[in-house]
């Protein structure tokens, strides 16, 4: 019983901390001035937040444990020792660079390949972007993304805990770029992601661009960087998606016909575009 309380406590503190960090920014520097803090579907995003913290993080870590274990068993020790004999800063650069490269292409694939899009579209189904909507993500999408972003560290055998500062920064910045904030940072946005860039990634167009995770460098290199001087008119996707938590989790895993039958049978609402 105590551990349930501990989990709830940690989740509550995280939610409170994020609200304290981002809500004032969204109020003072709003990207969409008419968007309220308690906007439509905020409860759905809260469900995703709670699900991520209370349910799915365990599954993701468990999968990664086994995945990294498998990789460890097939990668020659000689290779690892060779990598680890380099200076720490060089290893750190390699890990960050390859993580960004892999996640960039993996993300592009998610938008291109229909099977991957089925899961990734859950994240894009948010019609209102803010710090809470950042957490809208299918657990299998999480496994895919977090697995790939950690792949270079697994392969190179790099001790990620020595990059704790970078990792923490990336984590909170990833939430920031989803927030309803418009605070242009000038040329700095070519180095580090900003909400005005990532908002365009959430444009209705499935291939809108800006696929890079945190730094837009990969987008610049591969020609998918876009940064108009205004906010997109509408966020979301053109497809119909369930408007409830369970529906969003189940729908991507079922054939379309089966889902149609189920949604009709249980009268599951789907958002109309």
């Amino acid at each position, binding site marked *: 019983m*105590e*551990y349930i309380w*501990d989990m709830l*406590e*940690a*989740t509550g503190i*995280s939610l409170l901390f994020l609200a*304290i*960090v981002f809500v*004032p*920014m969204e109020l*003072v*520097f709003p990207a969409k001035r008419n968007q309220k803090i308690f906007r439509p579907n905020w409860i759905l995003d809260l469900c995703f937040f709670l699900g*991520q*913290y209370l349910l799915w*993080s*365990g599954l*993701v*870590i*468990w999968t*990664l*444990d086994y995945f*990294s*274990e498998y*990789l*460890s068993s097939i990668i020659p*020790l000689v290779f*690892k020792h060779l990598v*680890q004999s380099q200076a720490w800063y060089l290893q750190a650069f390699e890990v960050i660079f390859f993580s960004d490269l892999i*996640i960039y292409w993996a993300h592009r694939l998610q938008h291109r390949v229909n099977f991957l899009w089925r899961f990734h579209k859950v*994240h894009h189904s948010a019609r209102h972007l803010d710090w809470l909507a*950042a*957490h*809208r*993500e299918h657990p299998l999408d*999480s496994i895919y*993304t977090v697995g790939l*972003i*950690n792949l270079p*560290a*697994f392969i190179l*055998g790099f*001790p*990620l*805990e020595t*990059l*704790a*500062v970078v*990792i*923490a920064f*990336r*984590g*909170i*910045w*990833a*939430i920031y*770029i*989803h927030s309803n904030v418009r605070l242009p940072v000038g040329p700095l946005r070519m180095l580090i992601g900003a909400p005005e860039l990532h908002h365009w990634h959430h444009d209705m167009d499935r291939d809108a661009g800006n696929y890079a*995770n*945190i730094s837009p460098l990969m987008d610049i290199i591969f020609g998918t960087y876009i940064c108009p001087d205004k906010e997109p008119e509408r966020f979301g996707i053109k497809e119909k998606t369930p408007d409830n938590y369970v529906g969003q989790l189940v729908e991507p895993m079922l054939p379309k016909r089966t889902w149609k039958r189920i949604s009709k049978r249980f009268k599951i609402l789907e958002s109309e575009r």
Partner: protein
Amino acid sequence: MKKRLIQGFTLVSFLTLIVLFVAYKGGFIGRSSDYLHIDPNGTVIKNNQEDSVTILDTVIREEALMPSSKSMIISDQAKFKFDSTIYHKLIEEYHRKEGEENKKQKVYMYSSKSGYVIDRDRESLWKSNDSMLIEYLKRGATDSTDKKNN
């Protein structure tokens, strides 16, 4: 003017919170320094040492995972796991299946992956501290001592 002040204050607060958060997660602030003084062979760890190593290994690995563009970074996930029966069951199941020989190998295998700290220097494992971890270990040690006394 008032608007400017509010904007300035909000921006400074935001940046301060981000810096504090990053510093906290990086272990520069808010982590109990007494943790460093815990001797891996000392009383706190002693009764739980074997489990602690395994659990710590998992914790370090978890805390060291790179977050995606959306997920899981704010809370100390460590707390989730310490008392999580799922993880304990998984660890126990593994140990039961693999036996003593492989258990040793497991620790080694962990260290050759992302939990590299263990392989390099067992003591540095304990430096990857967490105040909740200390509490957990202390609690575990106390429970264990109580059981023995009873």
